């Protein structure tokens, strides 16, 4: 995907979340708001290399992935505002939505659970000769779960076309990575499975895209699963209610200089006018979508019932 396209997706990702912050401040967001500020290059860079037949399971920090898979900003807005028109009709929260037709699987909250599930998707795709790759994400903290282990091991033993993207963003809620694991390179997790792996700069969308392209190629070619660690920084609290006081100010400052959007901009010298045009187009789109979502109704109480079984 071309840098300008990547730029547009990253801007869209960021503006959608910024608009959600406004909704949150207006108490229109029901529950917590989870940002991916500073990590957008990971969602955009990795999703940018997926084919239509591929299946992806985004987590709470992957709003950008939903957008790239065909969901509209209003879908995310309505999800966070628990509206009737949201993908789940208000039954589930934030990024807990999906549609197999769109190649998107909704997560459950229990961290790690998506890894075995996506291994199963990769397995089914191979059995069905769909030439698909399954991709999912995991935070540094999420790799401490038993499900991460069981899913990674199974994928390696079955040589499944699975790409797991590790978002090493320095923290799990308030817990710094060194209190979560005794390794410094998250990719070392893959060594227990004999799984191919790489660690890259997660704040450079071009680097992420290239690494993801290789990882997906590797998986699609039948060589087996791939664990791609993207080093980055969670630039907000765990959720908007969390002021992240536990993060040293210097850490934020140091990472602010590596903002993925600014870095991509810098690499697009001379195209300021084009970029500004994209910014305007996206801003308008987001506003229009936000208005639609905002004005849309809450679900009818009756929708609370039924559809437990087919």
């Amino acid at each position: 995907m071309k840098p300008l396209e990547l730029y547009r997706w990253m801007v869209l990702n960021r503006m959608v979340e910024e608009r959600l912050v406004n909704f949150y401040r207006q108490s229109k967001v029901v529950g917590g708001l989870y940002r991916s500020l500073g990590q957008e290059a990971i969602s955009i860079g990795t999703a940018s290399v997926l084919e239509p037949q591929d299946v992806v399971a985004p987590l709470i920090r992957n709003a950008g992935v939903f957008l790239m898979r065909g969901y509209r900003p209003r879908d995310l807005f309505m999800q966070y505002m628990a509206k009737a028109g949201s993908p789940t009709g208000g039954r589930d929260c934030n990024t807990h939505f999906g549609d197999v037709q769109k190649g998107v699987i909704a997560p459950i909250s229990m961290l790690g659970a998506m890894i075995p599930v996506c291994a199963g998707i990769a397995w089914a795709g191979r059995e069905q000769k769909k030439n698909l790759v399954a991709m999912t994400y995991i935070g540094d903290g999420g790799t401490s779960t038993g499900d991460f282990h069981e899913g990674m091991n199974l994928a390696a033993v079955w040589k499944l076309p699975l790409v797991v993207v590790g978002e090493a963003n320095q923290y799990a809620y308030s817990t710094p990575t060194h209190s979560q694991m005794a390794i410094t390179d998250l990719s070392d997790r893959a060594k227990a499975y004999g799984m191919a792996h790489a660690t890259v700069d997660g704040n450079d969308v071009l680097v992420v895209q290239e690494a993801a392209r290789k990882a997906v190629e590797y998986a699609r070619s039948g060589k087996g699963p791939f664990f791609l660690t993207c080093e980055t920084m969670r630039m907000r609290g765990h959720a908007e209610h969390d002021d992240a006081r536990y993060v040293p100010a210097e850490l934020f400052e140091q990472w602010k200089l590596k903002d993925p959007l600014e870095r991509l901009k810098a690499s697009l010298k001379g195209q300021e006018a084009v970029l500004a045009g994209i910014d305007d187009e996206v801003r308008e789109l987001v506003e229009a979508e936000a208005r639609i979502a905002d004005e849309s109704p809450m679900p009818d109480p009756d929708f609370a019932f039924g559809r437990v079984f087919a």
Partner: protein
Amino acid sequence: MSSSTTEKPHLGGAEVATGRGVTLLEGVRQALWDELESDPSVYLIGQDIGHFGGAFKVTAGLQEQFGDHRVKDTPISESGMIGAAIGASMLGLKVVVEMQFIDFIACGYNQLVNFAALCRYRWGQGVPIVVRGPCGAGVSGSAFHSQCPEAHFMPTPGLKIAFPATAEDAYGLLRTAIQDPDPVLFLEHKFLYRRVRGDLGGPIPFGQAAVRQRGTDLTIITYGATVHTALEAAAALEGHSVEVVDLRTLVPLDEDTVLDSVRRNNKVIVLHETQRNLGPGAELSARIAEKAFEYLDGPVVRVAAPDSPTPYSPTLEKAWLPGVEQVLHAARELLAY
């Protein structure tokens, strides 16, 4: 624990049911065979289920017949196995996951109750998987190879539970389970595997209890291995006409058949092998009270295992298991009520 464990007939009734036809274990195998044969989207995964045929040999011969893609060994990862089945089901496979012993489902609990069971409600995605395996006591398996886990899963919305008592039902219910659009926990009592025999029929719909014996004085509601305990007790209650209702599936529950029997007989015993405290018997007692209170000529009485783990030694296990004696005792008291 293994299929060759010296099995002691603690469950009374079970032997009575032996006779011609195929065993319950063969019924399970035949259902798997027929589904693998008739539906290319059906897959089996589990530990040692391939060339080895599984700890109880339930899947013996299936990998040879259908290949190692359709019948696949897994690492020792219950959560990974169930999770993989969930993912595969979203793309259209129908995966049957074997727990080598159902007790180990505790290690895959989260995937089953929080992922598989809740998907359809949350975002409309069905998860047609079957998790099956040997359960139950009576074979000196002690605390971790004897469990009947149905009570731990019944409160989970979105999960169906089948528990066959006969070879016909094992076959018919498993075929239905595999084609069911929702997740099913399928419980096979290992004590019955080679003890009950029958002729196989077709698929058997969920939610239809079977009245194993008609009667007019008292109804015993049960399922699984204790159906045979109930039948033996009924036979021993000379002079009394006892009805035995086999629920077959706990979710969905055939309320109509249960209530019809209660309204006719007015006295009810609920019998199950699993522990008493918040066992399925509690739900039956509560529903009967709510929907047929005025028909009751006595309290709904529960006969179940005591609230302790299954002990190992045959002498202890025999004392622990709810047997014919306990049923007779409860029945005589209730009949005299």
